């Protein structure tokens, strides 16, 4: 069964450093998302991406964040200068909206900013 994969599973970084979180969405999906979940809290939408551009972003997704689809399979989230409050689980999701609204989530990357 196809699945969304994410790397790394855990990233530890120092405040102010840049991090890149990577995702490989399900191969025939066209819509990609990033969500985050601060420990013990609900899952929050960050950004959606379609046809090589951002289709929607939340207020969390400020200028420190960017997304990219550098090739035909990867989808990345970059945080330019990490803050302590960026510590969270980051989930990538994908769907094929034309056929179904189901979004499938990856296992997540735990980002710890020290």
């Amino acid at each position: 069964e196809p699945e969304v994969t994410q790397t790394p599973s855990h990233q530890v970084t120092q405040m102010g450093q840049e991090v890149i979180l990577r995702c490989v969405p399900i191969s025939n999906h066209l819509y990609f998302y990033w969500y985050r979940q601060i420990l013990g809290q609900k899952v929050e939408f960050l950004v959606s991406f379609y046809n090589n551009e951002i289709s929607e972003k939340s207020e969390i997704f400020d200028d420190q964040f960017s997304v990219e689809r550098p090739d035909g399979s990867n989808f990345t989230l970059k945080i330019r200068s990490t803050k302590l409050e960026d510590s969270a689980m980051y989930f990538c999701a994908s769907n094929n909206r034309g056929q179904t609204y189901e979004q499938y989530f990856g296992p997540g990357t735990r980002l710890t900013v020290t």
Partner: protein
Amino acid sequence: QQQVKQSPQSLIVQKGGIPIINCAYENTAFDYFPWYQQFPGKGPALLIAIRPDVSEKKEGRFTISFNKSAKQFSLHIMDSQPGDSATYFCAATAAGNKLTFGGGTRVLVKP
């Protein structure tokens, strides 16, 4: 108006019991309501979903009830098992765009 409110925050039932989790929404543009199950350290896994033209949907031991006029929907877990112990999130989307999640319900099923 974008919020989805979920209750209770936590629930403890005995094996075989029926945990019931409730969600309410305001945005009438929402047209798809999935439930996700999440185990510690894992990503949310799609469990079951419903559209507003249906009042009930069953998949295995999981049932969604949907009340469009009240803008409420709920998840029932029939014959609950210890392996069902997890956090459950309701969510909603309009036209398959971003998911708006409820706050989550931590369910513990005691043997």
